[in-house]
């Protein structure tokens, strides 16, 4: 209230306001053309405001919905990833089971839990140990071919020396022509089939398999495929490059050969 204006000043306006309010209520009680028109007009005006307000509400709802959907999306993404992973694992395991059933070996399935690359040895750690009746020098394979051999065996963990290791050697032969040699690795993605005499029958695309001449590796395991054959001017042997049958980058489940059926 402004200074100098007493209650009577406002009383006049309050009286007028009350009179007008009562009059409006009385007018609204009519059911005539004018009131219908006003009601219609008010409904239109309110409709516009409601419409605008609904946009405002929609904005806040959208933010909430967006958060919710993002959360759901993330959850579905994770579920989807897990399911894809399970599907792939399922596929791999099926292959392994098929391999296990078809072959002549007694196998124990296990999982690769770590890969390490040391200066003197390349190996992977397997989730299997002497508690599972495995021992040193047992051969490790996958359905596609030779992985390596166990060289350290703990109670529930073992180290497997893989084909791509400088100290790894395995006696092998060309499957088609039976030409023999020793498989080794000197770095890179490929192995070498050494000590195959010049002029031997070796072609690109030939499979290299284990010969079974050593005490460790049984015969017939795929080692790799010949991808390069050269005969150097000097020396007695051919230079044969082999692409390993196993993709060591995606190695996850493997088998340890524990015996022959």
């Amino acid at each position: 209230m402004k200074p100098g204006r007493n209650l009577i000043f406002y009383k006049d306006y309050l009286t007028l306001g009350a009179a007008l309010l009562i009059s409006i209520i009385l007018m609204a009680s009519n059911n005539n053309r004018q009131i219908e028109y006003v009601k219609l007009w008010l409904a239109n005006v309110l409709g516009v405001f409601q419409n605008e307000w609904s946009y405002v509400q929609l904005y806040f709802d959208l933010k909430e919905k967006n958060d919710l959907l993002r959360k759901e999306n993330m959850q579905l993404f994770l579920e989807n990833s897990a399911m894809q992973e399970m599907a792939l694992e399922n596929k791999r395991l099926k292959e392994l089971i098929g391999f296990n059933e078809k072959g002549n070996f007694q196998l124990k399935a296990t999982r690769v839990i770590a890969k390490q690359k040391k200066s003197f040895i390349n190996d992977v750690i397997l989730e299997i140990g002497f508690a599972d009746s495995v021992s040193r020098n047992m051969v490790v394979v996958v359905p596609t071919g030779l992985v390596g051999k166990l060289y350290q065996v703990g109670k529930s963990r073992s180290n497997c020396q893989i084909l791509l290791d400088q100290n790894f050697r395995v006696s092998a032969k060309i499957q088609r022509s039976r030409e023999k040699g020793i498989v080794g690795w000197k770095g890179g993605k490929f192995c070498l089939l050494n000590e195959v005499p010049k002029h031997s029958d070796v072609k690109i695309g030939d499979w290299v398999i284990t010969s079974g001449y050593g005490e460790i590796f049984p015969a017939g395991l795929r080692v790799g495929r010949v991808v390069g054959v050269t005969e150097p001017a000097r020396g007695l042997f051919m230079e044969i490059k082999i692409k390993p049958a196993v993709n060591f980058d995606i190695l996850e489940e493997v088998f340890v050969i524990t015996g022959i059926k």
Partner: protein
Amino acid sequence: MSIIKYVVIYFILLFVETNLLHLISIKNITPDLILVYVLIFSLREHKSKAAIIGFSAGLIQDVFTTKFFGLSAFMKSIAGFLGVFFQQKRNEYKLLYYSTAFLVLIFIHELIYQLIYSLGGDIGFWNLLFYSIVPRTFYTLAMAVIFYFIFPPALRRNIAGGAKE
């Protein structure tokens, strides 16, 4: 003037308006005698009292005459309240001032009244203005001028020194 006189005069005017006014209608245009009554009182009274008189007079008029219940009460309340702003300190009003004040007040009243009354109808604004608002304003003003000459004491203020507070 006592309240009884107010009431008696009001009902006489109401009787004339509801029963005899058609006798003096010109092309269906009739003056609003109750409006004149309210405006005369508004030149004599406080704002709140003028508003209450306007409201009461309009409400009774609604009961007896109207086709739109509450509209007269609404408009007479406004007219009574606005009339107070035309009060003068002098005890008597000059005809010119009186006529001008009534012209303005009656026109405002008629304009708003007729606009509300014509809501939803198909009559255009200019037709409404020239065939209803303006003729009715002048006819009502004529009645107010007649009152001015017939009952000059009615315009003597009821408030010492005017009621413009």
